[in-house]
């Protein structure tokens, strides 16, 4: 393999990994703070994708503006769902909470399927063209995705690590009871975490619409990969999820080149089961919370 090819594959893997990281970040945030495996996360990605699609095709607004719009819409919808539905199952057995988000996922899938049919949609508006850096070629759309992911990802991590509300989120993730006994308004913090995570998912959906096609299952398909990443990164660990997403993106790019993408996926899943067996707290994660 030549060095330029190596760089090209690395870049390609980074684009895929970065997008996955934003979705996985949200899954890990909800899992860590709210203690819920959000099966409906993919539907929020789909929501962002369709919202951007509609904004671009109906209102002739640039897809770049669709990204913050999708984020705000997602955060609002996420807050509503957490307040009205998911929080009702708080404190119930794991099975119940799982099934609540699962039912939400089915409902979302049903709504998108009947509102938009199974067709594939896409738009050609927005940035187009090629950016070249040395021998590495990257499309402007992919570059946009990469940059937005970088900004959003770093922004989220800063919020979690550096702000007062972030302190509350981390405290909640480590010990729920202690956080409450320290005066943290747990339902409010959970609401914030859920809204932020869903906002991220919808923003990721906007990015997906920019470089892929849009259909009712688009988020559903993506979120399975995000779950893989969250398990690999140590469940609930935000940093672990981001690193694992990028690692998987890059490894897949190389494996797909050497063999094909089916084998790349098989390899990922084998790695996953091996991780569960040998390092139950994730490839990169330590034991997080109780």
């Amino acid at each position, binding site marked *: 393999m030549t060095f330029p090819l190596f760089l090209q594959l690395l870049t390609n893997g980074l684009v895929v990994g970065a997008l996955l990281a934003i979705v996985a970040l949200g899954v890990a945030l909800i899992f860590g703070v709210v203690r819920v495996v959000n099966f409906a996360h993919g539907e929020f990605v789909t929501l962002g994708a369709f919202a951007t699609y509609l904004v671009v095709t109906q209102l002739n607004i640039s897809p770049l503006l669709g990204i913050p719009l999708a984020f705000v819409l997602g955060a609002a919808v996420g807050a509503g769902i957490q307040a009205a539905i998911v929080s009702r199952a708080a404190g119930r*057995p794991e*099975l*119940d909470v799982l099934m609540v988000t699962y039912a939400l996922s*089915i409902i979302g899938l049903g709504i998108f399927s*009947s509102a938009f049919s199974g067709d594939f949609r896409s738009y050609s508006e927005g940035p187009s063209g090629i950016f070249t850096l040395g021998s590495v070629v990257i499309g402007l759309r992919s570059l946009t995705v990469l940059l937005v992911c970088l900004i959003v990802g770093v922004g989220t991590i800063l919020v979690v690590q550096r702000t007062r509300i972030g302190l509350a989120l981390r405290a909640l993730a480590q010990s729920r009871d202690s956080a409450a006994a320290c005066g943290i308004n747990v339902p409010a913090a959970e609401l914030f975490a859920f809204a932020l995570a869903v906002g991220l998912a919808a923003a990721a959906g906007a990015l997906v619409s920019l470089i892929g096609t849009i259909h009712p299952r688009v988020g559903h398909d993506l979120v399975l990969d995000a*779950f893989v990443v969250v*398990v690999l990164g140590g*469940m609930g660990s935000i940093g672990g999820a981001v690193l694992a997403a990028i690692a998987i993106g890059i490894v897949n790019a190389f494996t797909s080149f050497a063999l094909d993408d089916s084998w790349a996926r098989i390899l990922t899943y084998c790695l996953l089961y091996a991780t569960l067996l040998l390092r139950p707290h994730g490839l990169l994660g330590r034991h997080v919370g109780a």
Partner: protein
Amino acid sequence: MKVERGRDLAKITWGSLAILACTAAMAALPWLGVTSYVRTLVYYGAYFLALGQAWNLMSGLTGYVSFAHGALAGIGAYAVVLALNADLPMVISLLIAAIAAGLASLIIGVTSLRLKGTSFTFATLFLQELVLLLVRKLPFAGGPGGIVLEEIFPLWLPHVLMIAVAGGATLLVLVFRRSRTGLRVLAMRDDEAAASAIGIDATRVKIVLFCASAAIAGLTGAVHGVFASSLFPNEVFSIDLSIIALAVPLIGGAGTALGPVLGAVIYVGLREILQVLAPNLHLTIVGVVLLLVILFMRDGIAPALGRLFRLKDRRGQVPAIAEVRA
């Protein structure tokens, strides 16, 4: 305590007889001049019930949610078609299918059952995709084109077999959940730490249960393989079947023996009605029903009805755990 036990035994016996009678009646349908449309509906009811009971035996009783039962059934379907095409007799082929699914479940069981429930759920979720990828890649499994049963069997055969599997699985759940081990498993669902304190090897019990549950799912899939006779990997290993496997007991009443029966009837009925009334909203409505049941009826429709008619809900019958708590 003695009296209780005697009453329990009586209940099991009556329940078993009722299940056997129902099973026999349903199995006799092909010879009773019923239209093949009704027979097909009964068949699908039994198919979903068998899958639902397989799921129930593991997830309903332990609270560890499996998303793999569709895939396990798919493994059974593939195994039976390969075995029958190799000219093995039907009984042996079905047995092979059950064993194949049981073995596959060990991958998940061993990797994730000693961990928390969430790891198990993830491990089952990924099995679907992994098996699908492998089947497409492995030449002996027919590759992306899938496989076909060379001999098309008469419809009554899968019909009778499926009803037998569904009836047998229901009976098994009924008897098991009232057995000593069954009661302890229920206690474990409510509080795993407490259960291990009273001396249950939780991991071992869960692995054995999951294996048995997988074998039933494999058998169910195998019978359906005989019915369908033509398997496409994308369809056999789609997540839809796993959804049905958990929706049926959850709607009817997870962890109970008769809840899934009600769940299967409701599901098949709902599907047929929505087919005509609101084909566009089928998925949405199933989701809404599931959500409402979970949020407002907690343990499903059957126990809720039971409470409504003041029948005693025996779910709470667990060994005293006061000493190990607090």
